[in-house]
């Protein structure tokens, strides 16, 4: 086995995995707190890709050219606007369904996902869109013939996702907001009795999850440069797979699951077949759910009779 190819695939897996991890945070936090799969989450990510292109174009037209400023402004506004999307979706499509049947929020979420996709398609057109390449440059390790390479923007992806994760972990573990989130996740009724505004906490979780997806969306868009209104679907399922793999409801699990899935997928497409890499990822999801539904870091559920 070629050590360089192996290294390259693992590195690609790590990059892809940190993206999955960032998106998986949204699934895992929402599932942890209200026990529903937010199907529209992948489309939130898609929205952030469009926002990246729109914001970049606006910022350039204002005459700002300093790269760090451009990046920070784009990130900030993309995360803020996407967060607002998350808030609004929860408010409109999920909050009225608290205490409804088990299927209702899921169906509503699928409806929301269709709405977002077709809304973007109608307003922005169905064709592929793109952004200019802003950060060029490659880091190469190894010799002339054989090497492992990583672009600067990919380095940025890995660093940014770890910073994002660390900041989020700090918020959840150390701040009052985080304590309220954890309390609401454990027992929503009890948290409400203790004076926590659980509706506000649930909204906050949606905002956090959405802005993390936006972080991923901005970085990926800067890396790949092209996107369309349908990109949220497959990456959404994969990020969900990552969340389940890591143990749904667990934050470090989401990141771990993302990286494990990314690397497994990288190795599979490098050494087996890249046509079937999505099949492999979905197959992995099924296997995990059948044999270890609580994931790598999750706790097993005890059925309440």
């Amino acid at each position, binding site marked *: 086995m070629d050590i360089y190819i192996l290294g390259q695939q693992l590195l690609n897996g790590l990059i892809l995995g940190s993206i999955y991890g960032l998106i998986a945070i949204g699934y895992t936090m929402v599932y942890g707190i209200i026990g529903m799969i937010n199907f529209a989450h992948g489309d939130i990510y898609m929205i952030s890709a469009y926002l990246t292109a729109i914001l970049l174009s606006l910022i350039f037209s204002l005459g700002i050219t300093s790269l760090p400023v451009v990046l920070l402004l784009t990130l900030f506004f993309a995360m803020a606007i996407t967060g607002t999307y998350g808030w609004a979706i929860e408010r409109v499509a999920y909050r009225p369904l608290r205490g409804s049947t088990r299927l209702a929020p899921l169906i509503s979420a699928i409806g929301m996902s269709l709405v977002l996709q077709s809304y973007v398609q109608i307003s922005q057109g169905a064709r592929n869109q793109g952004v200019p390449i802003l950060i060029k440059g490659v880091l190469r390790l190894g010799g002339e013939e054989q090497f492992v390479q990583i672009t600067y923007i990919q380095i940025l992806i890995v660093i940014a996702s770890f910073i994002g994760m660390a900041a989020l972990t700090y918020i959840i573990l150390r701040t009052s907001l985080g304590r309220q989130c954890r309390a609401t996740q454990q027992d929503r009724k009890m948290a409400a009795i203790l004076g926590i505004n659980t509706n506000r906490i649930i909204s906050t979780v949606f905002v956090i999850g959405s802005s993390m997806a936006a972080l991923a969306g901005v970085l990926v868009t800067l890396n790949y440069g092209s996107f369309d209104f349908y990109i949220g679907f497959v990456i959404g399922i994969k990020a969900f797979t990552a969340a389940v793999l890591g143990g749904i409801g667990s934050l470090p699990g989401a990141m771990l699951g993302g990286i494990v899935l990314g690397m497994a997928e990288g190795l599979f497409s490098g050494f087996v077949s890249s046509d079937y890499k999505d099949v492999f990822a979905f197959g992995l999801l099924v296997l995990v759910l059948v044999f270890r539904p609580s994931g790598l870091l999750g*706790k097993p559920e*005890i*059925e309440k*009779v």
Partner: protein
Amino acid sequence: MSVETGHPLLSVRNLAMRFGGIQALADVNFDIRQGSISAMIGPNGAGKTTVFNCITGFYRATGGSIHYRSDSHDINLVQVLGEKLHLKDFLNPPRLANRLYYKLFGGSHLVAQAGVARTFQNIRLFREMTAIENLLVAQHMQIIRNPISGVLQTPAFRRSEQDSIDRAHIWLKVVGLDKDANRLAGELPYGHQRRLEIARAMATGPKLICLDEPAAGLNPKETEELSNLIRLLRDQHQVTVLLIEHDMGMVMDVSEHIVVLDHGEIIAEGTPHEIENSPTVLAAYLGEDYSNTVVAPDGTTEESRPQEMISA
């Protein structure tokens, strides 16, 4: 009323249950005699519901066995839920095959099919189905289920359907709900729902029926009726009854044999009279201080508690 001398229908031996690090049950042993009305009591959190869920197949006990012996069955209710595979099993193919079979196809339904029915503390009816449909679902073991004969509506199928409707009607009459047959179960008043749930459990044709706090939320008159119903089920329908109940009046009135649990262990067992006068039970319910003042004249001390656990 005397305890009938039927053979033990259910023998619980060394039952243990652990949830993560918490030991919910430790070494529980008791028998339920055929044709008896038994009650399980104990303070909140004593493990009554856990024992119940183990017997009715909703929890897989982490240790021990529950043997159920009726005319047609002699099975271990823990085994049919599908036990974890051990390394040793791979050296013993028949046992491995047996375990694999239950792992794939086992589950709580086998417990019910063996003849153990139950009701739930927070009523679990099929709320959007009518009362009679609830009873029809329960009879699925006794009727023709072949989908082809159902689609073609063969005469045999229609007869079997009519029989099951008649049986459902009889059960509705037994619990006094025949007027409500075509009402949605979820729309019935609370007391009626309780009785419908008992009728539904009885419609499966069980040997043992486990009632989880059947009197919760009922008024004294309804509780009285419930006691009569429980006796009627035992006397006329040859079913053994096991119940968990907090209403001591009802427990003492209706049951012939009482098992007292505390902290996941059995602290006393016996007739209502014996339980009423058992110092350990009083201690468990009312606290050590109380037990000391009451118990002191008999010379019973706290230390002697474990030794005098079993009377009966």
